[in-house]
Structures are given as C-alpha cells and as structure tokens.
C-alpha cells in the first residue's frame, strides 16, 4: 500500500486553508486538508459550527466577525475536500511528503504541492510572574469563550496592546465578565508614529470604525482603562493575585485572579523552519516570517505558504491569500491557464489589497515595547519549559554563547516540550542585545522533526509508507 496522494495537501484548516481548499477543488484539483483540531476554523473561527448550531448565546457574545466564519467552514463537509481532522503534522519534506498522526497511528500523505496554512500564535509576553497559574494569553480567554462558553470567574486584568486585545475585552464585557482593568502599553508616541499611515488605512475604514466602536463600548461599560503603562508585573506566589504597573508617575497595584496578556500575534514558523526555508526579520513587528514569492511560492518548488503564517495580515486577508495561492498552485500544475488565473485571481487580489491597507497603521501603532522584547529584569523567566531566565541568557552570552542554537548547550533553553515556541523570539532578542547586534544577525532556533511529540506506538503502527520514503531523509537532517 502506498501513501495517499493528492494534487494539493493543505496543512491547517483556518481561513487560509479552507478558502484554498474550496478554490482548489473548484478548479478540479484533488485536495486534502490536514488539521490538528477535530473541527475546522483554525483559532479565529474555532468551534464556529458548534457555536452557530448549539450555542446561539455565545454567538452574540463573540460577534459578527466570528459568525462570518460559519459560512466559510460550512461548505467544507459537503465538498470534495478530504479533511483529515484531528491529525497532527509532525514532519514535512520539501518534496511534498507530509507525516502526521491521528493520535493512534502515524500516516504519510503525499502532495504534488503542499500549502502551509499554519497561521499565527500570540507573541509570548515574558514579564515577572507570567508563569503563575491564572495568567493566560488574551487569546486563550477567547478560545475558552469559543470552545467552552467559559469566562474567568474572578476579577480580570487585561494587559498589553493590539487590536485583538480590544476585541477580546469587548467580548468579555458582553459575556458579563468582571474586568478590573484594561492596561494598555500603547503610548501617545505610538499614535504619533502611526499617524502617517492613516491615509492609506482609510481605504479600510471598516477596520478603523470597528476599533473605535469597541473602545467606546468598553468605556461605556465602565471598565477602568489605563494607557501608556510600563513595568508590568504579575503579583502572586502560588497563583496570580493581581498586577502592578507604572503609568506616568504613578504605580498601580490592582487585584485580579486572572491576568490576560497580549502583545499581538506572530507567524507560527515551526513548520517553515523545519523545512529550512529562508526566514526574514520584520523589524517593526519583531517577528520572523518565511520568505515567499508570487502568491505564496517558496524556494522549495512543491511548498507554498498562505495566511498569517507568511506574515500577519489578519483572517480576511488570509482567506483571500489562500484562494490566490490555490489558483497559483493550479496554474503550476497546468490545471488552469495563466489567462484563466488572471481572470479568477483579480477579485481576490483586490480583496487582499483592501484587508492589507490597514496593516501599516496597525504595525506602526501596536509595537511590542522594548521591555517585553528584552526583559530588563534578570529573574524573569524566558524559557518556561526549562525555567531559564533573562539573566541566565545574558550570562551565557557573556560566557560566549553566540546564538540560540549554542545557547541550548549552555542552558537547555528551547529544548523542553514546547520546542522553543514560547522562548524563541525572546532568546533571539536578548542575545542580540547582549552581543550588540540585530535579531536578524543572531538568527533563530533550528527546528527539527517531530514538530509535535508522538509516541513510539503511533510511529510503530504507521499506516502505508512507501518503501522509498524513509524517516530522516535529507531535508529533515540537521
């Protein structure tokens, strides 16, 4: 028995992945979508089918932009797309081989083309106390609303910056949660820096209108809002008991049993790193993104990338990008002509342009503050898994650790179960500052398979597997 083969294997069932699958099937490609979750939607539309059909009260809380996702995912089951739900991808090869597991059995799938739509994750926010129980990302609280209709029961401190921070605060207000404070790191200087981008952003006035409306509603609900905060710390010993921060000349201490941290989202680059694709440094937003060419093509001919995994542009842009990439793939497989491509791509290109128009403004306005990027306090934990602090990293740099990969040998940073997802960006920043160079120069962790842990039993029960496909083939080597 040989591995299942498809024209296009899509990794990730978020907006980019689903839109691409629909588009690819429409032009006659055989398509499969491999996704870690058992329901489509990604994180942005997580559990939207279940909420739309069974939990209307949560749909009202989550709002129209979430509800929109139902239309996108609804057609997936009826379509010709093969959906491998609940399948975790643990290795991808440059030739289009995708290794995954459903939790019981490992499996090998082959794509003539592979499109990665692995999306974004929230930027980890290393502040003193961020490892305490009761501290979560703001996105985690949103996922709990989406997937379980749950809200934190005690007073909540929401701290950080970014459009998602406002959205989640607004949703929590509607859900009747008890918000003790919304503390924003955004300063007046950030708004001034963003101002020159306002004209272009006006093309996407709907985004600006939404942002202003959210802020109005949060204020109207009586939530205490403090802006321009710094020196954020989570207070507590065994669990979070509150936050402290500075605003102007004043130090605030606010009780809270749940602390939600957020500093924007960054591409999840584990899969693109494992593929050894070239990555670039986004100097303004301080994240890595894989280098892509025309409509998500990469230096590896069989590998394409669409959506936030290629650079942050938001869900609606991801959807348009997914469709464009699917058409590009179809073109590369001669399923459609270049003329036909131009015809089909035009509406999605203008859709993409619209949703990207607001991005320069947002990127300039919501920049993670320096004290989040390179934690000044030596005792702040950076690598949560191995409990490595900012001070440990600075000391290792002084002893000669030149980069993130050498740092592993000094401190085991990045070698725990999360495989560097939580500390990677911070380690790069701390080392860059310690060596007086740039993050782009310092580089990032080398990511090796398996991308997610799998048991030996899963591997031993491997389905299929062509004789010419062997584990540890050249592209996966060190």
């Amino acid at each position, binding site marked *: 028995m040989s591995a299942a083969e498809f024209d296009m294997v899509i990794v990730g069932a978020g907006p980019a992945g689903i839109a691409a699958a629909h588009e690819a099937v429409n032009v006659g490609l055989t398509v499969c979508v491999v996704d870690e*979750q058992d329901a489509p939607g990604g994180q942005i539309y997580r559990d939207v089918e279940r909420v739309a059909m069974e*939990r209307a*009260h949560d749909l009202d809380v989550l709002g129209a932009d979430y509800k929109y996702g139902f239309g996108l995912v609804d057609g997936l089951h009826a379509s010709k797309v093969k959906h491998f739900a609940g399948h975790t991808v643990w290795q991808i090869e440059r030739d289009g081989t995708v290794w995954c597991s459903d939790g019981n059995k490992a499996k090998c799938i082959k794509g003539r083309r592979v499109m990665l739509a692995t999306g974004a994750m929230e930027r980890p926010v290393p502040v003193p106390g961020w490892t305490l129980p009761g501290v*979560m990302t703001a996105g985690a609280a949103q996922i709990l609303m989406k997937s*379980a209709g749950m809200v934190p029961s005690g007073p909540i401190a929401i701290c950080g910056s970014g459009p998602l921070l406002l959205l989640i605060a607004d949703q929590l207000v509607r859900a009747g949660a008890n918000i003790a404070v919304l503390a924003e790191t955004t300063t007046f200087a950030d708004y001034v820096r963003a101002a020159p981008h306002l004209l272009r952003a006006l093309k996407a006035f709907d985004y600006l209108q939404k942002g202003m409306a959210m802020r109005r509603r949060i204020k109207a609900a009586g939530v205490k809002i403090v802006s321009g905060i710094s020196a954020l710390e989570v207070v507590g010993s065994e669990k979070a008991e509150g936050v402290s921060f500075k605003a102007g000349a004043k130090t605030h201490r606010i009780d809270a049993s749940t602390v939600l941290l957020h500093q924007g989202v960054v591409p999840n680059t584990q899969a693109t790193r494992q593929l050894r694709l070239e990555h670039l440094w986004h100097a303004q937003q301080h994240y890595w993104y894989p280098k892509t060419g025309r409509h998500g093509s990469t230096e590896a001919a069989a590998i394409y990338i669409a959506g936030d995994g290629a650079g942050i542009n938001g869900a609606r842009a991801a959807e348009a990008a997914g469709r464009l990439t699917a058409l590009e793939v179809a073109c590369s497989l001669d399923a459609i002509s270049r003329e036909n491509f131009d015809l089909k791509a035009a509406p999605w290109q203008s859709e993409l342009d619209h949703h990207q128009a607001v991005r320069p403004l947002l990127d300039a306005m919501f920049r993670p503050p320096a004290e989040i990027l390179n934690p000044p306090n030596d005792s702040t934990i950076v690598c*949560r898994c191995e409990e490595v602090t900012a001070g440990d990293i600075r000391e290792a740099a002084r002893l000669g650790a030149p980069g993130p990969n050498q740092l592993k040998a000094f401190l085991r940073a990045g070698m725990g*179960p999360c495989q560097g997802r939580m500390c990677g960006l911070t380690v790069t920043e701390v080392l860059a500052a310690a060596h007086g160079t740039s993050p782009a120069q310092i580089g990032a962790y080398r990511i090796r398979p398996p991308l997610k842990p799998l048991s030996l039993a899963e591997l031993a029960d491997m389905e299929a597997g062509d004789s010419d496909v062997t584990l540890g083939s050249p592209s996966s080597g060190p």
Partner: protein
Amino acid sequence: MLKRRHNDGKVVTITVDGETVEARAGESVAAAVLAHTEGATRTTPVSGAPRAPYCMMGVCFECLMEIDGQPNRQGCMVRVTDGMSVRRQQGARDMETSS
C-alpha cells in the same frame, strides 16, 4: 478559575485525580479542569513550580496532563469524553504509567 456562562449542553462525566467532575460535551480537557480547579494544573519537572494552561491553542505545552493513562497529552487539544480519566502531572511524567 473559570465559570460556564450557561449550564446547558450535554453533561459528560470525567474523573480528575480520581474525583468525579461534570464537564460539558465539546469542552477541552484543559477547560474542564480549569472550571473545576483554581491554581495549578501541573508542577514543573525542573523546579516543581505550579503551572496552568497559558495559550489554550496547543503551542505552550503548559496544559500537559495524563489522559486515560497516557502522560504528557496536551489537555487543550483533547475534548472530554464520558468516563475519561484525567490526572494532573507532578513534576516529570512517570515512565511506569506510560501505555
């Protein structure tokens, strides 16, 4: 600690460290445990520090739990099922219990 905004939904009974806990169909194991417990859902292998789920989307690995005898499962990525047995991990996983 978390609360359910509504108590409708199908009840699913699981055990958490041997204690019977009512969850709702569709919830992740991590969510069900957070609705039941305040504070730590595990302690770390390195220093024994208390931890609880941080990201709820499968990237932080703070929600590692033993689920139906299998240690180091991501509690945020697994939905509750009737009769499921969940154990909070203290320190490193126990090799003996691995199935």
